[in-house]
């Protein structure tokens, strides 16, 4: 009851308080500038997560290698990228030109095939991608490794006994079963990434946050525009949460005795249970 009153007060305040400027929120919510920023945010999230996942798998496999040098390189990478703040890493990539004015591709200490000024190669967008992606790889590596370790050794043995190679065993037997453990924290990472992309506004990359900052620096409607950004972040994380639910459901095949209901199905069920608290019979038997 107390909670209900507090919530009612909160909603009332949100709607009536002039400072929130809801008309301004409505005006800018779907403006071109905001939508372009949104697109950049999504782009950054997708590319950086892709780098993070691929890098994470490579680092995890390296980390579990019997070769101590290979394992050590992976350990060192994770130690460095997890141990320094993401914001510092982003600034570092952005200012790489100060350290190495020219970048090139070629034989070490020998001739170079391609080279150019670092500033033309590392644009703000590239710096953002590198910073976010390489940092993410360190976190993903530990998640992937936990997934590999969660698969029973008997599975690997059974695959080897059938004559499957190490790569076939990894691809057909270990990775699909590790996914069940890897997916939920990866969903969390994706949601964190979506929000962490807002850090790139310090590099003047025109993401969602930077787009609204540009607008309110001109019209001084700071709070309404921050609400616009927050609403979009909320919408995107909600979409991701629902997506994660379905991916998890897909990979729970075989481990759960029956598939959990779909998201809508569960919603429907909950609405029914509110009205009729005690379900009379358990749902259909598995076969």
């Amino acid at each position, binding site marked *: 009851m107390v909670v209900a009153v507090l919530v009612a007060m909160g909603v009332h305040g949100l709607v009536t308080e002039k400072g929130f400027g809801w008309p301004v929120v409505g005006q800018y919510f779907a403006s071109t500038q905001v939508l372009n920023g949104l697109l950049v945010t999504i782009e950054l999230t997708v590319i950086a997560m892709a780098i993070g996942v691929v890098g994470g798998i490579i680092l995890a496999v390296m980390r579990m290698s019997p070769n101590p040098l290979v394992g050590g390189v992976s350990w060192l990478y994770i130690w460095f990228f997890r141990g320094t703040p993401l914001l510092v890493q982003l600034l570092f990539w952005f200012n790489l030109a100060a350290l190495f004015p020219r970048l090139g591709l070629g034989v070490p200490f020998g001739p170079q095939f391609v080279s150019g000024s670092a500033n033309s190669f590392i644009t703000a967008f590239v710096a953002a991608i590198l910073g976010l992606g390489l940092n993410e790889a360190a976190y993903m590596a530990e998640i992937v490794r936990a997934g590999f370790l969660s698969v*029973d050794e*008997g*599975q690997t*043995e*059974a*695959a*080897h*006994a*059938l*004559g*499957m*190679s*190490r790569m*076939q065993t990894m691809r*057909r*037997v270990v990775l*699909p*079963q590790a996914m069940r453990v890897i997916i939920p924290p990866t969903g969390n990472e994706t949601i964190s990434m979506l929000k962490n992309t807002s850090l790139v506004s310090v590099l003047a990359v025109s993401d969602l946050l930077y787009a609204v900052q540009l607008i309110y620096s001109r019209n001084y409607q700071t709070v309404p525009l921050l609400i616009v950004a927050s609403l979009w972040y909320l919408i995107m994380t909600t979409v991701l949460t629902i997506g994660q639910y379905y991916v998890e459901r897909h*990979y729970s*095949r*075989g*481990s*759960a*005795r029956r598939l959990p209901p779909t998201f809508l199905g569960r919603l429907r069920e909950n609405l029914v249970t509110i009205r009729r608290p005690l379900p009379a019979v358990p749902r259909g038997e*598995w*076969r």
Partner: protein
Amino acid sequence: MSAKAGPMVLAENVHKRYGNLEVLRGISLEVAAGEVMCVIGPSGSGKSTFLRCVNHLEPINAGRLHVDGTLVGYHERGGRLHELPEKEVNRRRAEIGMVFQRFNLFQHRTALENVMEGPVIVRRQPRAEAAERARQLLDRVGLADKADAYPSQLSGGQQQRVAIARALAMRPKLMLFDEPTSALDPELVGEVLDVMRGLAAEGMTMIVVTHEIGFAREVADSLVFMDQGVIVESGPPREVIASPQHERTRAFLSSVL
């Protein structure tokens, strides 16, 4: 199945160590084609380890292990053993079926997919062909109606029968059973032993590590008793069980019978 004369399995003075712990201390035995050998012994006697050496899940430290006339996992050059490349090890392993104590079915695949996996991935058989044969094998172990069930939806006995079908799908010339009924509820043991009895009757060469003395007496052609990494006693099962020659065999048998 094999045109070569000579035993299907020939072990000569096989040694296996984990660090300082000697698990196998000179195992020598022969299994003829079509023979069923049961291996019994207390836990820690090395019987499971020996079985895992036969298909090179464990490398051996000394001695020779031949299956169907070829060394397992190694080739010999100048009197020394050299480990074969992974590809060759896998090729030889594919001809040896193995059934585990804890079934080890692929949890994310249905019974049918479990049986198809080896032929499709290792032998590159067309899916339709592999599926048809997988259905025949499931029918043979009495699980035709469970083809689309996941392992978690099957009882232990059913899982173990699927595991046997999965091993048979590779058309092995030798089947290894590592305590196949030890993880089962007592009332489910019979259905698995029935399938194994059927296999033995069809002439499959089998090495069975087991605690089922009744099965050994009835089905096996030879019985081996192992303790502390050596073979203490071996011979026709009825003789070994009825009149063991060694004190250790006698003590073990009286504790399990």
